[in-house]
């Protein structure tokens, strides 16, 4: 275990940023999101949940795939460069780290998405334990320990120090890079914090949420339930839940006319949007009920069916906090839970 005084954190950021790009929670106009570190930025480790998850670091909301130039009849395709430089994502919480494991299931499955994979191999994850979990958190339901998250380096923030524990080879490398700034430490403060976090987690209102009955086998039973008819009603068909979600991975591929060619890019898409499944000659999900159902079925039934039972939800609670109509996955799970009793 290593540690660094909080007053020295700016030095740590500068040291990392000197060697690699550093992405961490930054407050801009009152809201905190993962962003590139700069000397002038307002690093915010106090806000528990960034508005967007950390998934942008590996799967950006919008990224170019290739450029297409036309010269007369001839088309030339220039693929976008893959990530080839190392970078660090600092301050990711346990739920978001697991979110990346969910994305891995999709993007690293054959055929591997090389844009994502290149970022994964060049990215070092420095996770941060959740000192003060909040009411909408339910990561425990998915077996996540927010007191000791996964990651290449795990850190804990106390009043005076950031405790630093490298876990993987990548983590050791990064630790070596900033070794001058770190001092050796015992585990006492971290052990105490983990214990305190554990006690809070037990008291979280959704800690005991039951996922019983949500699995690949329940597909038709859940799909055909009349409950969706009521549950979807207040849905505004916006994409807030999908865009703040650490595991939503649906994307669109679009063209952008640059004036002297076409830039083909991919961007996050939302199954909540009415054009998501629209084709030239039809659409298989024409109602918001179908689109709403798709999102939850995907997370709790289809995804586990295809990925050995792994849910595509990590209990970060962002949808709980952010839905303009106060709908969310907890309400859906609970509604089905009541039905079962």
């Amino acid at each position, binding site marked *: 275990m290593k540690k660094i005084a909080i007053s020295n954190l700016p030095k740590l950021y500068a040291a990392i940023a000197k060697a690699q790009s550093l992405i961490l929670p930054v407050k801009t106009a009152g809201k905190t999101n993962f962003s590139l570190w700069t000397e002038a930025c307002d690093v915010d480790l106090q806000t528990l949940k960034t508005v967007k998850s950390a998934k942008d670091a590996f799967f950006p909301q919008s990224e170019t795939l290739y450029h297409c130039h036309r010269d007369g009849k001839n*088309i030339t*395709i*220039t693929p976008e460069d*893959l990530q080839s430089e190392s970078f660090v994502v600092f301050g990711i919480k346990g739920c978001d780290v697991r979110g990346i494991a969910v994305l891995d299931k999709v993007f690293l499955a054959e055929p591997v998405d090389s844009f994502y994979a290149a970022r994964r191999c*060049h990215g070092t994850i420095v996770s941060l334990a959740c000192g003060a979990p909040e009411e909408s958190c339910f990561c425990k339901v998915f077996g996540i320990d927010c007191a000791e998250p996964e990651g290449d380096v795990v850190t804990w923030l106390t009043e005076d120090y950031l405790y630093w524990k490298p876990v993987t080879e990548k983590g050791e490398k990064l630790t070596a890079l900033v070794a001058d700034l770190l001092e050796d430490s015992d585990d006492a403060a971290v052990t105490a914090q983990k214990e305190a976090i554990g006690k809070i987690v037990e008291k979280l209102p959704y800690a005991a949420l039951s996922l019983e009955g949500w699995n690949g086998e329940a597909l038709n039973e859940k799909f055909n339930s009349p409950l969706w008819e009521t549950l979807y009603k207040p849905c505004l068909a916006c994409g807030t839940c999908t865009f703040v979600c650490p595991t939503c991975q649906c994307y669109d591929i679009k063209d952008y006319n640059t004036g002297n060619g076409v830039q083909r890019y991919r961007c996050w898409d939302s199954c909540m949007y009415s054009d998501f499944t629209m*084709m030239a000659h039809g659409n298989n999900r024409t109602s918001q009920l179908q689109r709403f159902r798709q999102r939850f079925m995907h997370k709790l039934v289809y995804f586990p069916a295809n990925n050995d039972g792994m849910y595509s939800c990590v209990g970060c609670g962002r949808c709980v906090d952010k839905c303009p109509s106060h709908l969310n996955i907890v309400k859906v799970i609970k509604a089905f839970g009541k039905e079962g009793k």
Partner: protein
Amino acid sequence: MHEHECTCHPGFIHDTLIPQVGVITDIRQETPDVKTFRIEPPQGGKFFEHMPGQCAMICVPGVSEAMFSITSSPTNKEYQEFSIKKCGVLTDCLHSLEVGDQVTVRGPYGNHFPVETELKKQNLLFIAGGIALAPLRSVINYVLDNRQNYGHVDILYGARSADDLVQLKEIQEVWMKTADVNVYLTIDRPQEGWDGNVGFVPTYLKELAFDTNRTAILCGPPIMIKFCLQALQEMGFSKQQVYTTLELRMKCGVGKCGRCNIGSKYVCKDGPVFRCDQIDELPAEY
């Protein structure tokens, strides 16, 4: 230097989302709204090897990209063809292109008809309506080019009118002349100069009263599939004996972009070919 090779994964030279340039080398007007495009890489030949039933993404840069079935058979060693019906922004644009114009192609995507496994040694009954002959043409020619591996072949094909029959030349000059292959054509309404059958495909299918000692491969508009499947069941076929294809909106082609799923199956990856009993297990959202 161009960095499209990841230093950790030297294998990722070509992401599946990055297309190849394709040159249109031949265009055949099949019907008033269907053209068959021969598309080749600039150096000629084929983009990739494929199996019958597989698809490819064709894109007119700046317009749109969509999935099309590869209508030529894998046994065609020289080039690949796509029969495309004019029905939207992209297909309108494709129909306006000329020989020598370039598009982009990526693939192959999806599963294929089980020509080397379940279909081998079987008697085969192909049923197609309209443009849906496109995916079946690939498997029919594959079967005919490997004739010794399959039993008797029946092909039932219908369209709105005689002018809407796709690949008519090949049907008449090749398929009809191949030994142990019967071709049955039908059109929806009587038409001058047409002395073949008149009537919808499902009706004609029942009239032809095939026995159940065969595997049926069914492609067409949803309504035709529905009634043909009913007819086949009335004729004693089980759903395990019937294969069909599904089509949904696709973007990536590899089961990642998340839109073409029916339940936990992705049509682009787990399909487009499904056995009808497998479709029954899917939720009704297609």
